[in-house]
């Protein structure tokens, strides 16, 4: 796949440490306790990197030594939105970085017969249209769920360019689907791989 197709896709910098986390999550022999532990670590890294995509302004501060540090400041007014159920696994990671951030939820179900995804529940802060939205969904294999979720956000007045999708694993096909539909959407993931670890939600929440 050539880079032009990838739109605003950004990969988490893959060092050995990240590769190990991915390996543990992929391994079918990983215990559930380990799985949750290492998933939380990877989530934290992805969330931190997603926050890195938020807009900021320059800001100088005085340090206790009296010197000036040329820093920067993120704009306030962000919010998280998780796609039920696996997206909720990422909420704690977001809370650990932004203690009092508002978090909305979307429930998307796929029809058993047609495999078509449809939104059955959505609850957001009232002013979501004026916020930067961090959309959380860890595993993307077809991208259909995310398409529906972004559609709902747009219906609530959130511009495409204000949405950052936080994702752990996704397939190239899913990226293409999402990018074709929403070229301005920012996507952050840790790995592009043709096979998605679809056991994530079940193993994380222990319902396998």
């Amino acid at each position, binding site marked *: 796949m050539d880079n032009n197709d990838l739109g605003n896709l950004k990969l988490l*910098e893959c*060092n*050995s*440490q*990240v*590769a*190990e986390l*991915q*390996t*543990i999550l*992929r*391994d*079918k*022999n990983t215990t559930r306790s*380990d799985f949750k*532990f290492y998933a939380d*670590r990877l989530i*934290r*890294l992805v969330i*931190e*990197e997603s*926050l*890195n995509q938020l807009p*900021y302004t320059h*800001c100088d*501060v*005085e*340090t*206790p*030594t009296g*010197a*000036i*540090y040329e*820093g*920067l*400041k*993120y704009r306030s007014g962000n919010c998280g939105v998780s796609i039920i159920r696996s997206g909720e696994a990422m909420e704690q990671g977001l809370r*650990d*970085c932004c*203690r009092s951030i508002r978090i909305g939820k979307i429930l998307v179900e796929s029809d058993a017969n047609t495999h078509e995804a449809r939104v059955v529940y959505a609850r957001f802060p009232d002013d979501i249209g004026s916020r930067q939205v961090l959309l959380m969904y860890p595993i993307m294999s077809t991208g259909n769920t995310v398409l529906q979720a972004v559609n709902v956000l747009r219906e609530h007045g959130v511009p495409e360019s204000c949405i950052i999708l936080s994702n752990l694993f996704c397939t190239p096909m899913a990226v293409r689907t999402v990018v074709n539909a929403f070229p301005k959407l920012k996507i952050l993931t840790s790995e592009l*791989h043709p*096979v*998605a*670890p*679809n*056991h994530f939600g079940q193993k994380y929440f222990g319902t396998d």
Partner: protein
Amino acid sequence: MSQTKQIKFYNPSSSASSDSDDRSDVTEPLYVDPYAELGNGLPGDLNCCPASPTTVPAKPSLESPLKRSGRRQRTTSIGNQTTTANPSECIIRANNRTIYTAGRPPWYNCAGQQVEPFVIGICGGSASGKTTVAEKIIESLDVPWVTLLSMDCFYKILNEKQHEQALINEYNFDHPDAFDIELLLDVLTKLKEGRKVEVPVYNFVTHGRESQTKTMYGANVIIFEGILTFHSPEVLKLLDMKIFVDTDPDIRLARRLKRDISQRGRDLRGVLKQYLNMVKPSYCNYIAPTMAHADIIVPRGGENKVAIHLIVQHVHTQLQLRGFKLRETLANSYKDQPMPHSLHLLHPTPQIKGLHTFIRCRNTSRDEFIFYSKRLIRLVIEFALSLFPFKTTTVETPQGVLYEGKRMESRKICGVSILRAGETMEQAVCDVCKDIRIGKILIQTNLKTGEPELYYLRLPKDIKDYKVILMDATVATGAAAMMAIRVLLDHDVPEDNIILASLLMAEIGVHSIAYAFPKVKIVTSALDPEINSKFYVIPGIGNFGDRYFGTEPSDEY
């Protein structure tokens, strides 16, 4: 010296000096409760460093003086007296801080290399005043870290028959065969290399070794004293200066009689029998001939001020040649050099800069300061972990396909924090490594000298098998970090198994550490250009520990 009231008994000419025997009244409590001191320093975990700067072998344990067998017993505790004789001098209280001075100062030069300690051997007959001479040297040297090693610790373990002989004064404790020279050589060699050693604690009641040992470290000066210190040619080679204390035999016998009879409740006949049959012949056969090896012979022992003065002068010259001043040298070198390859700086992303903006701002509340520094620490630790060696591996996935990934080569990772600011990073290490072991090192700056000093050390026993993440929140000159790295190397941790992780470093500190320890990986989230005259990083964070723990001096507000 107020404790010299009895000295005239055998030494009428002297009134100002002290003698080891006269210290017995001071150390009497140690006899009443011989385990008190042992118990204090060693609560279960033997792998600790005593906080006192002068390490001394523990006193042999024993029961009541009456039941003790006919063996000379070390009654003094040099270490206690030289270090805690005047406790008020060791504590500085300022701005709500209590600082205990006289920790262990640097024992390596600014290239991080071990500086060989100066080893003084003191030999002399029984009751000749060797300990007094050692004590006088320590007093006059005024070097903060001196280790005193006594040959008494290396008595061999006696079998049952020998034990019985000892009880009736027929075992010869003054013969060279009574000592475990091999063990002694091993311990002294390691001490001279600046390594940690376990010194046996000899029990004069059971004539065996205690299960507990005394941990000692190499020092700037090591004093090794005993009756047969010059006997082994190998040991002789390790001594940089050899002193023989030559006291008149009559005086020595008088001291022995007084000590054994009035202080140890033994009878005249037994003491004389032991003296004539064993102590005296051994002195003539084994001890007196070794006088030939001595560089200096000190007549009359401890009150010989001229001799002590000469010795101390010589040692001072030698120490200066070896060079122990560190911090200033560190702060002034390496200007305008390119940054070393061992430095691994986190990518300066907007987010990391944003976090730094929070924690550097002087008006940030402590609650926010803690929260944002924790976020930053987590990123630093995650990044540090990625620098350990990994191997490629293939795993089976629930989706039925094989997946090629990576696993860390060794799961044996250990965190070591430099107190106090480094402790703030422990939680993050525990959050990313399950069941990780955490070691701690306390290093404080001596306000008088500006030099770092080592106070406290607790590390996993088998730390040499671990990859170590050494943590300190900020690194300015790098002096504390260098001391901590040196400690790890002294515990046999390979240099390339160490990662030094920090939130903020000054360029100078990075240069110093990289120059001294090129294989140590240095990880930080930001690099600042300067340090000020108080060794704070500029622009910096301020005092990280104070801000995190809320112990800022009140005049800052």
